[in-house]
């Protein structure tokens, strides 16, 4: 049985934050979950996907976060405890549904798990999603540790049912991707069958209904603020004239710093774990007892703004520090040493910082950026497009996925990128105002997520652009989750439909559609040339399994290749234009690392001397 489904309350397991979240939800009797994969939240859903096969849990990978929220909203309004999982930028997509769902509310608990990514380890921005709580009027819970996130999940479902509103559980990468001992709790058996009671005057948001619902939402917010003040997740410890208000992972850095600096007797800490609505009255009382306050929060001054306003309301005049040039930044992640240093500076405490090593004599170390895998078909497609457009002025908008990594030289496959699906929409815009040929790249999963509306736009407005759909039959970047184009029987799964990208694109009315196998370089270049020469919208679908997934599914990949030193003329086209990471230099000659090479044979087709041959080739 899946380790998170075992009925072993009281035991302690080492769990990844994302596993602890999944376990906490299961303990709460979760019956229905949906997501679109996004790091740092991906492992939550990966666990649900596996668990769904062994339990009554319903789980789906939806086409995007808005759809995921819509399906869970329906389930929760039928009385089934539900959960919707996304990364921070996913909430932008879900926001349209979320804003009005806040008016409608829920019947059974609905938790929206949102994973923020300060420092952008794997994201295009570091937006602070606590403002979504303010914007929508939904409560936010923010745990500080892996163990606490397990605990907070059942509380979140109960809170959701008390308020009859979805509850946002906001984590950051350092919770999702930390591991620690987690004490397991009892599992409540899930209630999987729902019952929908028709009530159009509360559930159909025409203006006359919504006017009443907005009034109700504000009442619930008042109720939520009372609960926030009472919540055990908004706690105070220590006493003394110095106050620190802190949320999330920073709480750990503050707790360690206060101990390290020996100021436990002077300091009181307010840990905010229920952060929307902020616990106003409780904070005012806290501020009354402080001479000086420091707010420690990654991201935006969300708590700081509230605390300043509360101090004003309470008529308190005291120094409140937070974001400032000499204090905390709105940029990036915090770390223990930095938090300790800022606390020492603000409260004027002596600090003995660790003496950093003098590293001035360390030579420059070559960078090791992430790279498309050896044998990745995206590299072959990018190469083929580069060949097909030699000497042509082009603009190449790219999108979100492994293939984004192709933006670096020598492939240089990517000139513009803002969000999921943006390559198609921005491609339309570029093609309208530029003379350059526009070639947009998008992955298969991303195409389903939000590429389709852009393509419809391109067809309707007859933009002159080529869209290359990089179809590797999976969502590779986040860990190989399925999407509507995947043949689920390949993954040993039954009961799924399948949407053909080719039929879909034709159905939209794209006038020029071709399918290529990127490992066949010559044919691919020819098909691309034709598509690019076409005036109007053309779509090229490049189909080839993700090699990493093919390997893990034990599908046959090719025999490795080697460079025949007799034939190699050392002009290095392979390394300079294709740049497969299986290449390396030895004595100034190109070689192939047979343990990395997947035998895709693309380099062999690129080499004009036919010097790249399969290993153990018969003489």
């Amino acid at each position, binding site marked *: 049985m899946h380790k998170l489904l075992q009925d072993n309350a009281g035991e302690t397991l080492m769990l990844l934050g994302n596993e602890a979240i999944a376990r906490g939800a299961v303990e709460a009797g979760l019956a229905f979950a949906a997501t679109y994969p996004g790091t740092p939240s991906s492992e939550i859903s990966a666990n649900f996907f596996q668990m769904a096969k062994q339990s009554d849990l319903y789980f789906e990978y939806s086409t995007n976060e808005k759809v995921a929220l819509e399906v869970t909203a329906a389930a929760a309004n039928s009385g089934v405890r539900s959960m919707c999982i996304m990364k921070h930028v996913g909430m932008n997509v879900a926001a349209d549904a979320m804003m009005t769902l806040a008016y409608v509310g829920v019947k059974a608990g609905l938790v929206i798990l949102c994973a923020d990514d300060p420092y952008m380890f794997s994201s295009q921005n570091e937006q602070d999603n606590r403002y979504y709580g303010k914007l929508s009027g939904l409560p936010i819970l923010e745990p500080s540790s892996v163990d606490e996130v397990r605990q907070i999940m059942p509380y979140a479902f109960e809170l959701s049912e008390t308020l009859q509103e979805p509850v946002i559980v906001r984590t950051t*990468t*350092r919770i999702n*991707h*930390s*591991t620690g001992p987690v004490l397991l709790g009892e599992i409540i058996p899930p209630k999987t069958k729902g019952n929908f009671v028709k009530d159009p005057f509360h559930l159909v948001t025409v203006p006359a209904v919504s006017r009443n619902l907005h009034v109700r939402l504000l009442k619930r917010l008042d109720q939520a603020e009372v609960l926030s003040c009472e919540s055990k997740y908004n706690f105070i410890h220590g006493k003394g004239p110095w106050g620190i208000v802190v949320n999330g992972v920073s709480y750990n850095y503050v707790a360690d710093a206060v101990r390290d600096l020996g100021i436990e007797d002077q300091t009181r800490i307010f840990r905010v774990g229920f952060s929307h609505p902020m616990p106003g009255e409780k904070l005012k009382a806290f501020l009354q007892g402080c001479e000086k306050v420091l707010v420690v929060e990654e991201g935006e001054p969300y708590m700081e703004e509230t605390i300043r306003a509360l101090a004003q309301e309470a008529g308190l005049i005291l120094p409140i520090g937070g974001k400032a040039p000499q204090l905390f930044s709105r940029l990036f992640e915090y770390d*223990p*040493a930095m938090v300790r240093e800022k606390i020492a500076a603000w409260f004027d405490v002596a600090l003995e910082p660790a003496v950093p090593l003098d590293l001035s004599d360390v030579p420059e170390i070559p960078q090791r950026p992430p790279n498309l895998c050896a044998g990745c078909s995206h590299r072959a497609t990018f190469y083929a497009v580069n060949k097909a457009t030699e000497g042509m002025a082009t603009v190449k908008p790219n999108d979100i996925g492994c293939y984004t990594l192709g933006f670096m030289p020598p492939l240089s496959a990517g000139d513009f990128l803002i969000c999921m699906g943006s390559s198609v929409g921005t491609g339309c815009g570029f093609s309208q105002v530029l003379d350059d040929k526009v070639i947009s790249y998008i992955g298969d999963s991303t195409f389903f997520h939000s590429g389709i509306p852009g393509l419809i736009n391109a067809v309707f407005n007859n933009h002159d652009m080529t869209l290359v759909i990089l179809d590797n039959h999976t969502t590779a970047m986040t860990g190989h989750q399925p999407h509507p184009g995947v043949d689920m029987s390949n993954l040993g799964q039954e009961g799924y439909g399948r949407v053909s990208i080719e039929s879909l694109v034709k159905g939209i009315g794209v006038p020029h559609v071709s399918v290529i196998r990127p490992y066949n370089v010559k044919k691919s270049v020819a098909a691309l040339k034709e598509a690019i020469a076409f005036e109007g919208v053309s779509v090229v679908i490049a189909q080839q399994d993700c090699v990493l997934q093919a390997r893990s599914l034990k599908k046959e990949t090719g025999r490795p290749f080697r460079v025949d030193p007799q034939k190699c003329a050392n002009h290095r086209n392979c*390394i300079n234009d294709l740049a497969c990471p299986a290449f390396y230099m030895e004595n100034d000659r190109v070689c192939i690392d047979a343990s990395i090479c997947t035998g895709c044979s693309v380099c062999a087709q690129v080499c004009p001397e036919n010097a790249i041959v399969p290993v153990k080739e018969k003489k």
Partner: protein
Amino acid sequence: MDVTRLIIVAVGGQGNLLASRVLGEAARRSQVPVRMSEIHGMAQRGGVVESALVFGDAQSPIISDGEADILVGFEPAESLRALKKCNADTTVIINTAALQPFTAAIGKGVYPDLDDIQRLIASKCARLISLDAAALARKAGNVLSVNMVLLGALSATNLIPLNEQSLKDAIGAVTRQAFAETNLKAFELGRKAATA
């Protein structure tokens, strides 16, 4: 309980996360408080994977620059790059088997000389233990056991609050059964190499 901070750096695919899991499991079994965090994300595709393990009475799961007590580097140049996490009291264990980054292959940067790497680390930190973990893994019967060799070396330093037996038990519990024997052999070889 005193706090011990351990950083592990490796290249994606070298088994760093599995090594961390073994340490975490051993800590759980020994009731040693532990917090761990990892950085991967986009770096999975051949980039650097770093994990931090904090043993003892601290709450932070990450380690600031200059604050690691031990650095275990699965790759020499990456160990050098991670040196900013260390201080003059840090013990460093490195695998001397180099993995050239692709940038070096295409002429963007030069891979530093192996002797220089060792000399630099030894001159700045309290102690350097270097071993060819790849060769020892091969000797144990599985090239992929580099991580277990390095765990063995780490165990031999007695710097982490986990005894040899608890680590062996954790290897048995966490790694795949089919490899248990070679993994334990690799662990032994690493231990011996570090004590020699």
